[in-house]
């Protein structure tokens, strides 16, 4: 059976592709190496994949290639390619977000109409909820993103549903909550914090540190995809969270022990588009998919720390 993973050189895409290969699937991976962060990171992410049997990588842009031809023998689509970043999505950049998040998804869905897919899994985001007061947040909560990024992720999620409803494309959307772990993007909080701790630099926090997140470890997120393949509910949306809400300051308190040294924290102004709290109500994923996050924050941060030490060892 063949899977297509878009955004395969990214943080989550590369881990997912590895897991799919371990499960015995063939994987076609696509990435266009958007310049949101350094290509070097992404090349490292897929270095292990490129040598594996059953994996084929294409450097390609979803907006350019012939997707119908590409999907000819594909059974599962995992659409993780996106223009990432909440804070960068304002102003002129919005055009890039609409192209890479909305239009690219629509093109892939359009091509999927004629493909014989078992499933199309869309990587959505907790950012679709915005600053909701309903915490933990179930899927049926009113959706009101707080950033242009969130708007594009939500628009694409809606497109998935309407291609399911109107054309029978078997789509499922997974709303990820603050995923962390080895290969985390360099602009994301824990990557920045652990790197700063390693290099003896100040850790910059946006806001007062009282914001909270439902941090979700990468292996739990990957596991959710494998579960979706086993228990497929087309047209559905699932929250994929880590199972507990943690205040940022509390998470930071773990760092001295993990890094084996004191860390210096400075507070910067809160950023536009950042939400105050996120917490996933994962009861639907638990009930229907059998999803159960396993990795606790301290354990997950240690794993990310080991990776950070490795990638910045020559800095």
């Amino acid at each position, binding site marked *: 059976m063949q899977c297509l993973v878009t955004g395969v050189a990214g943080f989550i895409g590369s881990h997912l592709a590895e897991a799919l290969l371990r499960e015995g699937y063939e994987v*076609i991976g696509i990435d*266009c190496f958007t310049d949101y962060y350094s290509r070097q990171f992404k090349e490292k992410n897929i270095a292990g994949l*490129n040598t594996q049997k059953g994996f*084929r*990588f*294409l*450097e*390609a*842009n979803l907006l*350019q*290639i*012939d997707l119908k*031809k*590409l999907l*000819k*023998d594909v059974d599962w689509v995992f659409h993780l390619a996106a223009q990432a970043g909440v804070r960068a999505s304002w102003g002129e950049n919005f055009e890039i977000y609409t192209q890479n998040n909305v239009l690219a998804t629509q093109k892939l869905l359009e091509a999927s109409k004629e493909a014989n897919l078992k499933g199309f899994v869309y990587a959505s985001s907790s950012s679709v909820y915005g600053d909701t007061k309903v915490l933990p947040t179930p899927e049926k909560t009113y959706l009101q993103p707080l950033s242009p990024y969130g708007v594009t992720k939500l628009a694409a999620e809606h497109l998935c549903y309407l291609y399911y409803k109107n054309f029978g494309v078997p789509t499922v959307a997974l709303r990820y909550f603050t995923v962390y772990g080895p290969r985390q993007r360099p602009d994301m909080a824990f990557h920045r914090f652990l790197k700063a701790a390693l290099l003896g630099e100040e850790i910059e926090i946006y806001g007062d540190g009282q914001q909270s997140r439902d941090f979700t470890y990468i292996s739990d997120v990957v596991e959710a995809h494998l579960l979706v393949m086993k228990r497929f509910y087309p047209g559905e949306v699932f929250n994929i969270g880590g199972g507990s809400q943690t205040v940022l300051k509390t998470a930071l308190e773990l760092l001295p022990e993990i890094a084996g040294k004191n860390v210096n924290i400075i507070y910067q102004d809160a950023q536009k588009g950042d939400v105050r709290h996120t917490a996933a109500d994962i009861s639907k994923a638990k009930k229907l998919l059998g999803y159960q996050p396993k990795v606790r924050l301290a354990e997950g941060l240690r794993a990310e720390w080991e990776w950070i030490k490795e990638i910045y060892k020559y800095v």
Partner: protein
Amino acid sequence: MPISEELLEILACPKCKGDLEYIKEGPHGEGLLCPQCRLFYPIKEDIPIMLIEEAIKVDEVK
């Protein structure tokens, strides 16, 4: 199935969506050629670079 055949089966020219020809060793190395657009999509370390902006314009086809 050899890489070349497999690629030709799933890939088309990103610009015109037309068929591609596999070139094992051309003036620009290994790659996929669109005779219509006269664009050559290089294959570097077994990775096809299917981006229009990275394609090499070729003057003469074959």
